């Protein structure tokens, strides 16, 4: 934390906030289990996490659900303080944005149709059609391994497309798969975890504006604290049914 | 020969023509007169099936139609090919040149050879005094010129009858004169015509027969001079309104 109590208010993290006394968080709100709507209320792993972070910072929290592109643009143009939307840290993105300490180390899975034995591992997706969300890391990985990316928005539709043979496979986070499989039929589909040697585990963190160094430090500290006091594990079990960081 | 027996036509509930029985002699000009709303246009349009009378008998050359029964489309087309309408508002086809306006019927409907149709169209345009306007569009014409094109267009179909509904009422006196001269010429050539007009002087000169209609009924049907000299109060009033001699 900041040790210099006499520093002027001008240079505290609070002056970096978009709205005074409030942590404004951008997220999609249509992305289970990270953020989604249940009985009319916004819930999800990242919704709860944002609340806990805000509490640690002594701030109120405000959610701004919007589209993927708008998350990025919103952080860039100072509409939100941070975006928490299962965003992976990459060196590319670090050039223009700041990231907090990661709060998820997300493992990838490859989902294919049962009976389709042509894809045994990540190396077999070359030339295949992989259904992935626009701009997602999943899409980037698929591309890197030579697959043709078929763009699609949401996870259930993606799985539908596999069943309708409109694609051969999809890469997604282990979390998404587990949550979907919990109360939905995945008949006809199977999955395999991807080897972390080949596809490194994704570090998911909060995305912040370049102009918010103090806020970045504060949020990172809050996440560390939440990790230490077991809150993160608790949240993970609540939403993913397991501690996905282990 | 065109002959009507007991023809009736109503619009919704209003009767427009009641028990019309008359004939339109071949190679002659019949003039239809009557006050506004009398049913002159309705009668003329019925002859061409632009209106559909509910009952009566329609005889035209070898065709004999019972108007109270459905009429075959073929019959209607055949009647229309042999009768041509000339409208008060000309109704030239604005997107076609004057020449194409005249050729359209012969080429598209009568399936005439295009070159033949063009040659005849040019002749007809010369006849109505518009040999030099073949490539103009209708909106480049004066009203009198437009109406003469409409007459040429109807002549090009070699119809048995030409039906003219107030062909000059949209025109100034001097432009009217151009058109009336052409019509007098055609009448002289024994073309069968039926003309609705308010022009007394012209009616007198062109008519072989006069029909006077009021409120959908025929009040006079016969020769020309007896009509204009009639002692009948209604006819006399009407004729004098046509001559403006009783304004004050």
């Amino acid at each position, binding site marked *: 934390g900041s040790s210099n109590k006499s520093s002027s208010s001008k240079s505290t993290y609070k002056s970096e906030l978009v709205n005074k006394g409030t942590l404004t968080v951008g997220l999609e709100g249509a992305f289970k289990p990270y953020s989604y709507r249940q009985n009319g209320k916004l819930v999800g792993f990242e919704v709860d996490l944002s609340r806990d972070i805000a509490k640690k910072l002594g701030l109120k929290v405000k959610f701004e659900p919007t589209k993927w592109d708008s998350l990025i643009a919103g952080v860039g143009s100072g509409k939100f303080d941070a975006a928490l939307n299962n965003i992976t840290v990459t060196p590319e993105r670090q050039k223009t944005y700041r990231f907090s300490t990661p709060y998820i180390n997300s493992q990838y899975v490859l989902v294919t149709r049962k009976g389709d034995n042509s894809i045994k591992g990540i190396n077999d997706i070359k030339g295949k059609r992989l259904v992935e969300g626009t701009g997602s890391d999943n899409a980037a990985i698929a591309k890197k391994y030579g697959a043709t990316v078929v763009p699609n928005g949401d*996870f259930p539709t993606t799985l539908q497309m596999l069943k309708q043979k409109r694609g051969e496979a999809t890469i997604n986070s282990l979390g998404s798969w587990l949550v979907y499989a919990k109360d939905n039929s995945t008949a006809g589909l199977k999955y395999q975890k991807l080897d972390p040697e080949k596809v490194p585990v994704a570090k998911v963190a909060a995305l912040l504006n370049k102009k918010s160094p103090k806020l970045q430090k504060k949020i990172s500290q809050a996440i560390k604290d939440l990790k230490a006091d077991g809150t993160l594990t608790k949240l993970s079990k609540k939403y993913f049914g397991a501690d996905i960081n282990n | 020969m065109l002959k009507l027996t007991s023809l009736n036509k109503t619009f919704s509930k209003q009767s427009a023509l009641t028990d019309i029985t008359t004939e339109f002699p071949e190679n002659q000009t019949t003039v239809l007169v009557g006050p506004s709303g009398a049913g002159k246009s309705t009668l003329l349009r019925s002859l061409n099936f632009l209106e559909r009378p509910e009952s009566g008998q329609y005889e035209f050359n070898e065709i004999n139609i019972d108007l109270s029964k459905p009429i075959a489309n073929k019959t209607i087309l055949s009647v229309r090919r042999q009768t041509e309408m000339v409208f008060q508002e000309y109704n030239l086809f604005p997107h076609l040149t004057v020449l194409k306006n005249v050729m359209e019927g012969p080429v598209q409907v009568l399936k005439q050879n295009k070159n033949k149709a063009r040659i005849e169209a040019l002749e007809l345009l010369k006849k109505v005094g518009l040999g030099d306007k073949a490539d103009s569009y209708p909106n480049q014409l004066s009203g009198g010129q437009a109406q003469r094109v409409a007459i040429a267009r109807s002549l090009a179909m070699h119809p048995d009858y030409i039906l003219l509904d107030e062909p000059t009422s949209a025109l100034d006196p001097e432009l009217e004169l151009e058109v009336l001269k052409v019509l007098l010429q055609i009448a002289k050539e024994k073309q069968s015509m039926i003309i609705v007009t308010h022009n007394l002087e012209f009616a007198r000169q062109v008519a072989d027969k006069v029909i006077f209609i009021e409120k959908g009924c025929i009040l006079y049907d016969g020769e020309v001079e007896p009509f204009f000299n009639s002692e009948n109060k209604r006819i006399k009033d009407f004729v004098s309104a046509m001559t403006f001699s009783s304004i004050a």
Partner: protein
Amino acid sequence: MWQIITNSFPQLLAAGLKYTIPLTLISFVLGLILALITALVRLSNQKGFFYIVKAIFRFYVWLFRSTPLLVQLFIVFFGLPYLKIKGIFPDGIKLEPMTAGIITFSLNTGAYCSETIRASILSIPEGQWEAAYSIGMTRAQALRRIILPQALRVSLPPLSNSFIGLVKDTSLAASITIVEMFEVSQQIAAENYQPLIMYSLVALIYAIFCTVLSWLQGYLEKVTSRYISANGGGNV
């Protein structure tokens, strides 16, 4: 499935009443005013300096008709904060989502409808202007009392086309953080994993809104056309 519908219907309706309808109504009214002004400016035959004003309005119409609405929303909401003008907007122009939405939808509607209104004014016969001038009316009086009431009748069908289009276009507001009806349907779909049902349901609600608008259009057409009675011969 029935449960999904009864669960989500109230939420969808609430979002519709809270965002979709106000956004549509306010933007359409403002857009219409803007469209009228634009149409009048572009129709005016004043010369000189006014030529520049006309050029600006022409540019505005071109710009908003030939770029996607989504991009317009994006630029007004996320782009304007970058527009820092010393003295006036030192921190850039930051708009609330609803404000940005209403501004963009109004500008977009204004551009399209100005063309409709322009055409409808041009469709009123010159003689109506002349008759109005003849009894000594000013241009403003002639417009207000004689021309616009008649132009309204002509422009009603295309304007309500635009209105019905706007109802559905408001779904784009989700990209500037407005949680309107369509966005709610997607958020719910994320929970129940039934996007097809949710989409059909939200389409149904749009259809209801649009059908009500069509009725309204029919009613207004009747009212504004009451002087064109069936029995008239058209002697005007």
